[in-house]
């Protein structure tokens, strides 16, 4: 062993700190029962793309950018111009290297060698022994972790009363598999291992000869090797941190993986010690992007600038406001900012000038912990960055009997399910009851099911808000929506959800702002709050006058079939009937228009009925495209974007900075919806650019693990991220991996001020994980945030020489054919 001296106390402390930091560098993955998009580069927000790409390549052999052929296609199609590249070179933080446009283009045409990860001990052992140790380790860890984290697939799971590391250890002590496959004495090795994960990490690191300058990179790599298990662990840490606690789970997971390295080195040391020394040296090398990685980061930026050029033609050029501020809308429809709403908003606005739409985060400002009807499960219907402030349940005391009846029914169904799957009784089940699967097969194969509306009774807060809090909440939310005057006759607040069949990733299609659940409970509660007479009269004193005949109703927009279900919840009076019927008629028409538009994005789908049918088809792996294609986030009054076709690729947030006196709403937008938008955009980005690492793989092979995730096939690590079918239609990518362009109509100084106060948000913009562009008075793109709290005028490079302040060198280059 390389180290002979034991680690000093200071060294140990440092190594454990690095281990913790390595854990922080792993993105969290929420369980599939309620999953949300996560930025896979969450731990790399402090560094630019090229560096993150180099880090990923070192750990996994994959880069964070696209194949060169994809970029070349963008170039040859003319979508990306030389001036885009020029601007990108100027903007991309490149270390000690100067690139020219020609160099970038030439370099892109070269074939480059596949990146190689630094080998682990397992890789080296596999090389010399011919036994695929990395795969065996992945298989063994899944065999244990699947049971440990199981939420209810198996009857006989691993007790979860131990720490992750202790549970693993107890498993490994009994498991004979690794010894049968050739790792001698592994059970004994684990029996003699320290009780505590941190001691195991230190002991193994010492045995492996890990020095401080190697540890960070090596630990990160080992945690990345765990795939979805590492990310699921990071999720548990995230939840612990959110509620103010701590969790050592990442140390536990690292201890498990490093234990294998330790055992394998002990067995193969004589053959691999030299190559392991080399590997460690690579870990200690300073992380600098290669020229190839920098070129890719430049062309990536250029593609995004090309997209911004396209976008600039769409905003701020709308015809003058057709609906004068003073004309009272018949219907105001507030939808989630989700890009899928954009198509629907355009459709419904086209039906009648008296329809106005708004975009707002779909949890409608209410951070709910909600129990649905006849359920004990607390569903956190809120952005995952936040803690719940309110508890709600479906139904009131008058629904108790129904609630119990429903529970008995569900429990009987559950008991039947256990009968079906238990030892011995499974035979009785088959011999007595399986013929009922004959009609079930026919029903599912021919989709003989109808749309089921949500039947949960109106949600109620468990503890009613004190009057002042209720008024404060109403005011805050209305101001955040920029909805403070000119209220319509009917205001429909529509959360959104998705109905799909037989899809493990169903919750990824639900509302991300509602924690991967549908958003109707939040919308219905907000409607209840805003219909409250006392709240309304108190709002008048705060400068918000809601006309007495304005009615708020909650609703649910189903993004798979584009139906809208209105919840009257006892708010509507007889005289509201006509307005509601009219709204429903508009919803039906808008749904048809939206489905027709969406049908063009599905190969072989020709009508709105075909689109509707996808939501009931148990074999359909692409029931809808979700947020695929998302590329822009626009916070501005709707007038700036109305009339333009954003093809369902833009988040549209209503925001009127003139009404935002202290810029508190702007601050909220930049720190919450924008951050959520970055998570979504970057999840798609990672699932497309590094699908083997950050994507969930092939849906046709998915094997649901423990109700929380999927395996691709029979073994390997759990897979987080988006399935390939969610971003690709079989022939073409449905999501261009472009980092989100955030356009906000607000003074630059106000935004600078906010960035200055929110370091983590600033990092996203400074390192170009997000682009920030300020819109001017007329909604046109005017200034670009260039990092370090600096702005420059936005230039579209429409014609040569129109570039931003480029020196003579730049002009020369642009002139080059």
């Amino acid at each position: 062993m390389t180290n002979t001296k034991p680690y000093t106390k200071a060294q140990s402390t440092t190594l454990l700190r690095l281990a913790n930091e390595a854990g922080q560098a792993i993105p969290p993955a929420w369980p599939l029962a309620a999953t949300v998009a996560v930025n896979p580069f969450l731990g790399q927000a402090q560094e630019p793309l090229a560096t993150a790409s180099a880090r990923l390549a070192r750990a996994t052999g994959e880069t964070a950018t696209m194949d060169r052929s994809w970029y070349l296609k963008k170039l040859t199609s003319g979508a990306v111009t030389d001036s885009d590249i020029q601007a990108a070179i100027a903007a991309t933080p490149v270390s000690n290297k100067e690139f020219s446009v020609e160099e970038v283009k030439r370099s892109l045409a070269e074939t480059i060698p596949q990146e190689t990860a630094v080998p682990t001990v397992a890789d080296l052992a596999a090389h010399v022994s011919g036994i695929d140790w990395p795969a065996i380790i992945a298989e063994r860890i899944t065999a244990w972790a699947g049971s440990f984290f199981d939420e209810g697939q198996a009857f006989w799971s691993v007790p979860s009363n131990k720490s992750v590391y202790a549970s693993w250890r107890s498993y490994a002590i009994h498991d004979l598999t690794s010894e049968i496959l050739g790792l001698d004495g592994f059970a004994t090795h684990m029996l003699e291992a320290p009780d505590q994960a941190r001691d195991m990490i230190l002991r193994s690191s010492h045995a492996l000869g890990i020095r401080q300058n190697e540890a960070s990179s090596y630990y990160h790599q080992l945690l990345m090797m765990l795939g979805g298990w590492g990310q699921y662990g990071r999720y548990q840490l995230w939840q612990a941190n959110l509620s103010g606690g701590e969790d050592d789970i990442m140390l536990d997971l690292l201890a498990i993986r490093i234990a294998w390295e330790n055992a394998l080195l002990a067995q193969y040391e004589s053959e691999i010690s030299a190559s392991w020394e080399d590997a460690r040296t690579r870990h200690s090398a300073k992380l600098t992007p290669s020229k190839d990685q920098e070129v890719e980061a430049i062309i990536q930026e250029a593609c995004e600038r090309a997209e911004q050029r396209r976008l600039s033609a769409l905003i701020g050029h709308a015809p003058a406001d057709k609906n004068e501020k003073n004309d009272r809308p018949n219907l105001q429809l507030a939808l989630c900012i989700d890009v899928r709403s954009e198509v629907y908003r355009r459709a419904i606005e086209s039906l009648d000038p008296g329809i106005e739409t708004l975009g707002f985060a779909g949890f409608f400002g209410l951070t709910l912990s909600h129990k649905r009807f006849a359920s004990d499960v607390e569903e956190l219907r809120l952005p995952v960055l936040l803690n719940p402030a309110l508890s709600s349940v479906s139904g009131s005391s008058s629904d108790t009997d129904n609630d119990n009846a429903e529970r008995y029914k569900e429990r009987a169904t559950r008991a039947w399910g256990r009968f079906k799957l238990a030892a011995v009784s499974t035979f009785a089940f088959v011999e007595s009851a399986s013929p009922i699967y004959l009609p079930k097969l026919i029903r599912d194969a021919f989709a003989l099911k109808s749309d089921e509306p949500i039947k949960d009774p109106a949600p109620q807060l468990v503890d009613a808000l004190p009057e002042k809090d209720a008024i404060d909440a109403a005011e805050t939310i209305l101001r955040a929506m920029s909805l403070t005057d000119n209220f319509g006759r009917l205001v429909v607040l529509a959360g959104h959800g998705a109905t799909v069949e037989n899809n493990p990733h169903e919750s990824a299609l639900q509302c991300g702002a509602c924690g991967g659940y549908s958003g109707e409970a939040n919308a219905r509660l907000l409607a209840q709050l805003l219909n409250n007479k006392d709240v309304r009269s108190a709002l008048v004193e705060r400068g918000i006058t809601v006309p007495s005949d304005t009615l708020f109703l909650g609703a649910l927009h189903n993004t798979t079939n584009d139906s809208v279900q209105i919840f009257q919840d006892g708010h509507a009076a007889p005289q509201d009937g006509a307005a509601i019927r009219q709204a429903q008629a508009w919803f039906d028409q808008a749904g048809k228009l939206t489905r027709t538009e969406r049908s063009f994005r599905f190969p072989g789908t020709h009508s709105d009925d075909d689109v509707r049918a996808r939501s009931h088809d148990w074999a359909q792996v692409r029931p809808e495209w979700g947020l695929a294609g998302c590329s822009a986030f626009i916070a501005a009054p709707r007038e700036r974007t109305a009339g333009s076709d954003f093809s369902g690729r833009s988040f549209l947030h209503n925001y009127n900075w003139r009404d935002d006196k202290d810029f508190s709403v702007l601050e909220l937008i930049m720190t919450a919806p924008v951050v959520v938008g970055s998570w979504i955009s970057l999840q798609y980005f990672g699932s497309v650019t590094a699908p083997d690492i950050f994507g969930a793989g092939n849906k046709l092979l998915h094997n649901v693990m423990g109700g929380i995730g999927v395996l691709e096939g029979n073994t390997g690590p759990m897979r987080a991220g988006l399935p390939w079918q969610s971003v690709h239609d079989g022939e073409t990518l449905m999501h261009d991996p472009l980092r989100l362009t955030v356009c906000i109509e607000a003074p630059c100084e106000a935004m600078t001020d906010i960035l200055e106060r929110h370091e983590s948000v600033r990092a996203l913009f400074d390192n170009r994980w997000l682009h920030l562009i300020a819109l001017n008075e007329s909604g046109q793109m005017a200034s670009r945030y260039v990092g370090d709290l600096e702005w420059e005028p936005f230039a579209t490079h429409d014609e040569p020489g129109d570039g931003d302040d480029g020196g003579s060198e730049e002009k020369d280059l642009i002139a080059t054919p």
Partner: protein
Amino acid sequence: MLTHVLVAIVPLILIASGVMGVRSSMRRSDIPGYAANAGLGAAFAALLATLAFALGQPEPNAVAGSSGLRAIIQVDIVSISMLLLVNFVGAIVLRYARTYLDGEARQDSFMGWVSLTLASVSILVVSANLIVFVIAWIATSVFLHQLLLFYPQRIAARRAAFKKFVFARAGDAALIGAAVLLWSTYNTIDISTINAAARLGEADTKITIAAILFALAAILKSAQFPTHSWLTEIMDTPTPTSALLHAGVVNGGGFLLIRFADVLLLSPGTMAFIAMIGGFTALFGSVVMLTQPAVKTSLAWSTVAQMGFLIMQCGLALFPLALLHIIAHSLYKAHAFLASGGAVQRIANTRRPGPVAIANLRTVTLSFLLAITIYGLLAFGFGLTKEAPQSIALGAILIFGIAYLLTQGLAEEAPKPLTRRLVAYSIAASLSYVLLHKGAIWLTHDVLPITPAPGALEWVLMIMAVLSFAFVAFAQAMFPLWAYHPAAAGMRVHVSNGLYVNALLDRIMKSWRSSSKSITQQ
């Protein structure tokens, strides 16, 4: 003859669309649509054949030297019901695959290989002579192999397919050996003639060896312990393959035993052997299943268990019930695999209505007594007591399963309405079992041999089976009270790894050879 013609149409349709599929290499062509419709067409033809069979004159028992289609196609309740089952499931699988694989580069060939596999299973189940039977048997696994390697670059797919390949070839050899022995003994290749002769004849060494070889072929085809592990590893191919495999192909072993029932009955030792193997596999598979956290893996272990039960039924000479088991299990398992994507929501839903009521020893005992009472009443009511002891023993085993349903309803914390519901379910399930059982015997009485009176060996086997199933059922009902005890932790690890049978096989087969990917040093 009409029935024969209709039966012949079924595989012809599938072969036509299958050949079209495997020859095509276009993405998003019209072929998946054709193949799905061909699947429906084949199922419809099978349905017409069933109707023609049901409404037509009973076929005379085949005689030696039957010619034309009759020499190739055997029409009886066993072949017709299997044909209908296979093509019903096949039509569902093809329809599913048409949508599911949309956009896959090799969807056409997937549809093609599924169609060809279905065609060969269809031929297998209706084949009237040994040669067709053997060819269809081999063709089934050869075509299936193409589906197992639909993603040939996947190492895990190759690993599982290789195991399956080795066992399938061993099974083919056993089947060919048995066929040759039968041919040379009876001087005919006609299966009904062989069975008729066996029914009247005496055993000799050749017949005994043939029976043993059949048993081996069935064990290998139907994933019996210790050759089961290929089945639990085949996941690295699109889900419809699993549905087809678990609902169509893996039954082949059980079908073989049913088809050659008369031959097997000449070798009571072989029957006892497969009863033991089957019974052990059933208990082994169903206990391992309890520990599996991944949905498809759990379903695959469930199939191992169910195939064990099927083989045990054959070993106990309960052939009509074995046929019923094949049909019932296939319908269930096809649906379970195709719907396995819903596992996330199903698991989430089980958590909603509150905790599961846990039963104590008293409740479990009471449930068992109650279940036995229900069974006793039904048995007297429907005259089951006159049946063979093997059948009564099997009924007892199943009733231990019903007891688990009752246990959940009778648990102390279970509210009254839940208790009422679950008692009603238990009675309905018991009644349903009795009726299906009666129906199966009634439908097959002139084709399948009756269960012979048990000898001493059979009695020992039955008692062992009843006791061991009772033990596992009881342990299962008491589950939460002991399964998380530290003393059980080691056992759980061994069970969840299938007692390391697969690991040993992996070691022997060198399944985990690392790929030739070299480790480049920078």
